[in-house]
């Protein structure tokens, strides 16, 4: 029996209106790989924030190596050997790697010594890094290495990883796991947060499952099937979306040899993109974040203008048209960022419905808004997509991420488009809502619309897509039929593991 490293007893935390954590108790042993599983909003983030000293529990106690442990801020947690790799990276684009590492340390050595230590540690664990590069120029995988190296330099006893693989290619995930196993072998405990069940079954030796802020089970994930774990997480039975066989129609959207410079200095420019999308087809585009997904969506939605003849909608050149012009022609889009891009945070759902639907639903007449009709449309979206909200007068920012996502996707689907482009349609959405959104997209395709799904979630793409391509550094691979593709092949399409393989082999 290994020794207990961290024991949680009855931890509770409430926010106004929400009981985020309710009486949670479990133990993490030294060198153990412990998974924390749960849907979005189950309370995983709040729980680890308490362990890392960002949030103070209302009730309950923690014991670290037998001594009482109640960190009031992250620096205290770090001094006690608790380190954390964040889900949304806590990095500074305009600072270099060494400075970013130094900011996460308690007593960093002078920058020159630190740079040398970064090189040593990163090579030892197969995570090559150049300390003098600006973080804004790094890929998502490299940025994560910065975070991990930052933690490793402090010899952590407990490493908390918050959904670390959501931005990695399958090959990069493999290497991350090797690093984590190496750490675990050296006695570092790892608290691994994820909702990717196969990963957890491959990696962890114990799992604690949260649902609605409560602990529902602690089990050995290797002894359960992914389905059993999922049902524990969700608390209900899950049905995979239905996908009727159907013939494809004519080509409706066509992009030919398009190169386009990004409008963001840290963005990725599109290089020589070509593809065709037929009526009734669902095209899935995979890729690690930051490989041109945002730019592709902006280019297709019309927010970034392109040379006209290279983007064609039903045969007509549309590159010069803005989003409204393209909507009128039947092309709608739902971007990844919900607050501030897909929806205006401080406007009501009715107003947000108006913003994208006014043209196709004729909600405006002679420059005046028909509020009655607009509200009816917003209500329709809310009912059909099961958006949990008191009514259409509620501000967009007041909705939880998953609910708002259902609303913004539903709003576009209700427009009866001929082509719909979505980026990360189920990002941060719980499993039940994600299933609704995927089913709605498939239904739309069944009715003859062309659907383009950009996503970093491979399981999602394999579930909905008929054909498949990947973005890698702004280039799009040729489109292939999704049937018969396996994860290995997709990983290679996504660009493999960049330079990580070599480094790992060199380190061994």
């Amino acid at each position, binding site marked *: 029996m290994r020794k207990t490293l961290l024991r949680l007893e009855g931890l509770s935390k409430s926010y106004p209106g929400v009981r985020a954590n309710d009486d949670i108790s479990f133990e993490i042993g030294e060198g153990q790989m412990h998974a924390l599983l749960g849907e979005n909003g189950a309370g995983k983030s709040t729980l680890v924030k308490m362990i890392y000293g960002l949030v103070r529990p209302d009730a309950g106690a923690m014991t670290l190596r037998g001594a009482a442990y109640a960190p009031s801020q992250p620096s205290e947690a770090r001094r006690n050997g608790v380190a954390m790799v964040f889900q949304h990276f806590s*990095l*500074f684009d305009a*600072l270099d790697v060494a400075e970013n590492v130094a900011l996460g340390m308690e007593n960093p050595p002078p920058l020159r010594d630190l740079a040398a230590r970064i090189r040593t540690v990163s090579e030892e664990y197969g995570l090559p890094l150049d300390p003098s590069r600006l973080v804004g120029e790094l890929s998502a995988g490299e940025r994560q290495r910065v975070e991990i190296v930052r933690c490793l330099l402090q010899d952590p006893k407990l490493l908390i990883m918050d959904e670390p693989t959501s931005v990695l290619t399958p090959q990069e995930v493999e290497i991350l796991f090797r690093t984590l196993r190496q750490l675990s072998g050296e006695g570092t405990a790892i608290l691994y947060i994820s909702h990717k069940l196969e990963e957890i079954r491959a990696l962890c030796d114990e799992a604690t499952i949260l649902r609605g802020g409560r602990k529902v089970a602690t089990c050995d994930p290797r002894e359960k099937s992914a389905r059993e774990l999922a049902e524990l997480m969700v608390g209900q039975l899950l049905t995979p979306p239905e996908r009727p066989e159907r013939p494809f129609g004519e080509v409706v959207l066509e992009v030919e040899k398009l190169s386009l410079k990004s409008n963001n*200095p840290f963005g990725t420019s599109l290089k020589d993109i070509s593809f065709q999308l037929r009526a009734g087809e669902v095209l899935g585009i995979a890729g690690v974040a930051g490989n041109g997904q945002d730019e592709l969506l902006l280019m297709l939605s019309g927010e970034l203008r392109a040379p006209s003849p290279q983007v064609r909608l039903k045969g007509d050149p549309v590159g010069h048209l803005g989003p409204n012009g393209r909507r009128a022609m039947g092309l709608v889009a739902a971007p990844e960022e919900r607050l501030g891009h897909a929806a205006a945070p401080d406007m009501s759902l009715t107003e947000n419905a108006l913003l994208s639907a006014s043209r196709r639903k004729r909600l405006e007449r002679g420059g005046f808004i028909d509020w009655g009709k607009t509200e009816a449309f917003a209500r329709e979206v809310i009912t059909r997509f099961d958006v949990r909200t008191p009514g259409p007068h509620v501000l967009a920012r007041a909705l939880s991420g998953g609910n708002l996502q259902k609303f913004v996707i539903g709003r576009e689907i209700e427009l009866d488009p001929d082509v719909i482009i979505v980026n990360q349609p189920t990002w941060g959405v719980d499993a039940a809502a994600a299933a609704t959104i995927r089913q709605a997209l498939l239904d739309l395709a069944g009715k003859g619309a062309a659907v383009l799904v950009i996503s970093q979630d491979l399981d999602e793409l394999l579930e909905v897509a008929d054909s498949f391509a990947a973005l890698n550094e702004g280039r799009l691979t040729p489109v292939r039929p999704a049937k018969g593709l396996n994860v290995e092949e997709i990983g290679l399409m996504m660009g493999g593991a960049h330079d990580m393989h070599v480094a790992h082999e060199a380190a061994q």
Partner: protein
Amino acid sequence: MILGSINPAVLLAALMVAATPILLAAIGELVVEKAGVLNLGVEGMMIMGACIGFIVAVNTGSPFIGFIGAALGGMALALLFALLTQALMTNQVASGLALTLFGLGLTALLGQRYVGITPPRTPKLDLGPLSDIPFLGRALFTHDIVVYLSIVLVAAVWWFLKYSRAGMILRAVGENHDAAHALGYHVKRVRVLAIMFGGACAGLGGAYLSLIRVPQWTEGMTVGAGWIALALVVFASWRPWRALAGAYLFGGVVVLQLNLQAAGVRIPVEYLSMSPYLITILVLVIISSGKGRSLDAPGSLNRPFHASS
């Protein structure tokens, strides 16, 4: 030959004097913006420094105590801004504008009894033989201590931002306040301190106008120096040494146009007085054209910070 009547050594000396107030204000604002806060109240804090510095200097008879008073006066107004924007979460742009209007009004009231008085003279720093060097001595080594202090301050800010840990934390807070918070840094504390430093610098700059450059107190005497300082920070791409270069460039244009006026060039005086401002606009347009977000601008500039946890 009209231009022949302008002595380059005197011109250079006058340029440094003309540049010092905006340089002081700009280097303060640079630190504030590096911490992610846009304080448009520089003009208000400068006039506050000009007024308080003048009052303190006249009453104590010491220009040095006057400068200290000016820094405190600017800092007091900056603290008001910090209270509004960091504690009460008001909009930074609106609060900054209000600060300028408030400063102009308040100083008009406070300074009423001081109009027309001559302040105690600030002695020139005696640099001995250095000031006897031909040309350079006249141009560079005949100034008061504040001119040199402003240059030292630029060097200090440069060193602080580039090499010190505190400076790195300040840049981190300005670049991505959410990440800085997640790592456990006190975003608001850093910002309040930066705002106070900015206020003190602006105050010093204002006092340099009323105690040395003019030297007199009149209502609204900063006439836009604060706005020039703000433009200068952008011009300098948030880099201290470039701020120095920009300030001297601007000072040069001011002094040159004054000399041209005095030399009787046949251009209407109004056009000459406009020229420094026109050049500021021109430079800003050239710098900001052709790019999206400038790579140099702090990532969290003018974004309010709410701690969500």
